[in-house]
């Protein structure tokens, strides 16, 4: 699959600008025989919301997990605020101002709402090892109120909450983490229309404030055109489209995907034919 060449005109050369917050160049990542990212380059401007599109298995989540420090790339380079950026861990990336909302949310069922909100960056009473639970509760409450999520209690395990509520907690955790680059892997996946609208509104508000730069994986093209400044599409482990959302349309994005499916089908047929030719015919 990965060897199926993308037409040359589809591959987008990286365009770097001086005000890039994040720059990713020629990132490649394989898992054993499976190539997830072949050669990905992208950039993110300050205050920009970049929509990342692509088919299932195109490598979107792998790219996010590479940028957030969860896994290392096999090759390629990254820059953050113009400085070389090689996060060795999620913690280190977070310290440098890059945070992430994972597709699987990374919530701990047994822990409470506020403990999840501060997982791995828990505030402590000064010069003691003891957690400052009161502060965690207060700040978690403020963050959730700010988004408009109404949870009666923050000390219940998140296992008790609905899918949408869990998703909101994961998003709130990322947004209120002091990050200046936020990566969101399908932040609307488990949400109903009402909760989804709430998150999109939050993103619009953050965009207006201009402090946070975001890369957001979304499946709904309408949401992408509505919320993002620019869109990148990954096809077969490379960026196959890079356009401001104002210059593209649902039709164009759909056409690329349809085209991709067409090529995949042709490739599968060709492979089938080759296999049939190679197998000796039994009498």
């Amino acid at each position: 699959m990965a060897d199926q060449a993308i037409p040359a005109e589809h591959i987008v050369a990286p365009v770097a600008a001086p005000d890039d917050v994040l720059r990713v160049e020629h990132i490649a990542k394989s898992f054993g025989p499976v190539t997830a990212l072949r050669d990905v380059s992208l950039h993110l401007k300050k205050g920009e919301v970049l929509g990342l599109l692509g088919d299932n298995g195109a490598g979107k989540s792998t790219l996010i997990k590479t940028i957030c420090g969860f896994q290392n790339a096999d090759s390629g380079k990254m820059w953050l605020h113009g400085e070389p950026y090689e996060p060795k861990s999620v913690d280190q990336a977070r310290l440098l101002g890059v945070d992430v909302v994972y597709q699987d949310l990374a919530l701990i069922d047994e822990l409470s709402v506020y403990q999840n909100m501060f997982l791995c960056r828990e505030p402590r009473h000064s010069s003691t090892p003891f957690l400052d639970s009161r502060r965690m509760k207060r700040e978690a409450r403020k963050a959730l109120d700010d988004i408009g999520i109404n949870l009666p209690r923050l000390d219940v395990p998140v296992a008790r909450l609905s899918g949408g509520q869990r998703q909101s907690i994961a998003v709130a955790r990322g947004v209120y983490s002091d990050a200046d680059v936020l990566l969101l892997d399908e932040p609307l996946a488990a949400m109903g229309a009402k909760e989804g609208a709430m998150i999109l509104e939050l993103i619009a508000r953050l965009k207006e404030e201009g402090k946070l730069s975001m890369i957001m994986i979304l499946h709904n093209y309408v949401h992408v055109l509505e919320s993002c400044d620019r869109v990148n599409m990954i096809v077969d482990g490379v960026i196959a489209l890079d356009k401001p959302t104002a210059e593209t349309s649902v039709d164009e994005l759909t056409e690329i995907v349809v085209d991709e499916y067409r090529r995949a089908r042709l490739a599968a047929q060709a492979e089938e034919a080759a296999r049939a030719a190679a197998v000796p015919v039994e009498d």
Partner: protein
Amino acid sequence: MGAPARKREVPHVAATAWDLLRRFLTMREGSIIVVTVVLVVYFSVTVSTFFTGPNLQTLLQYFTWLAIMAAGEVFLMINGEIDLSIGGVYLFAPLIFYEVHGGGIPLLPSLIITMIVCMVVGLVNGLITTVFSVNSFITTLGTLFTLQGLTLIISHAQNLEMPGAPSTDPNTGASVIGTFASVFGAGTYSELIWALIVIFVMQLALTRTRWGLHTIAVGSNRNAAAEAGIKVRWVLIRNFVVCSTFAGFGGILEAVRSSSITPDPSAANSILLYAIAAAVIGGTGLAGGSGTIVGALIGALFLGILQDGLAIKGVNANYLVFYLGLAILLAMGINVYVGRARRKSGLG
């Protein structure tokens, strides 16, 4: 106006009391506390010597060191792991202490060196389990037998006299208890004090520190914990080290109290299983993600009372194991029931 207010107040108080009772019973430790209290009442009523000072002192030696060992085990069980090697470390630590002290090193430094050796055992358990992704049941089964074998080889399977333990004055025949002995096991309440310190510190660590929070996170959802940035491997290794250290410390306390090192693997194996039983009866599951240190103390106390009570009641020792088995099954049943009730009531 007064009358209606009073009318409203009465059911309010009843409701609060009921709510408190419900909260207590659905506490993770609530059910085992009730069962333990029932057991105490039962033995106090049926055996006249049970609730007496001397017997309560005897009772201490049944559960204190068990609680210390169970406290370390609970942390690993919350991680979704298990440490069987505590049965080996328990046996091995006093022997190391004996050998180190025999090399001319004073008691306290010998104890520190012994504790470091126990930490290394935990480190090995942790490294094998995490680096090579071996199930901890298998890793620690290996170290359990290895340490028990080493103990037998080094001691030639002979009982040894524990250095620093109480000794008998050759002239007067009176028992001499030095400072070291009275602090580390031979003083009447020394084991109890150590157990309470360990339980207090570990309960605090579990509920009030990052270490505890991350231990729960790793046990509940290892992938999510890693994604959140928790160094899963270090959390696990640290807990293996702590578990081994407490097992060794328990072994030292018991050797000092009894004045002898008894290299008996089968006794150590049942101690290992008692420690796990204490944790399980106390409300810690094997699946990971939840557990309680205070519960382990009460679980150990429950096992101690059961053993001590049945012994002074004159029950045949063979029945003891049978009752113990039933007690574990009963405790598990109650834990499952209470867990369901807790989830239903939304009390967390």
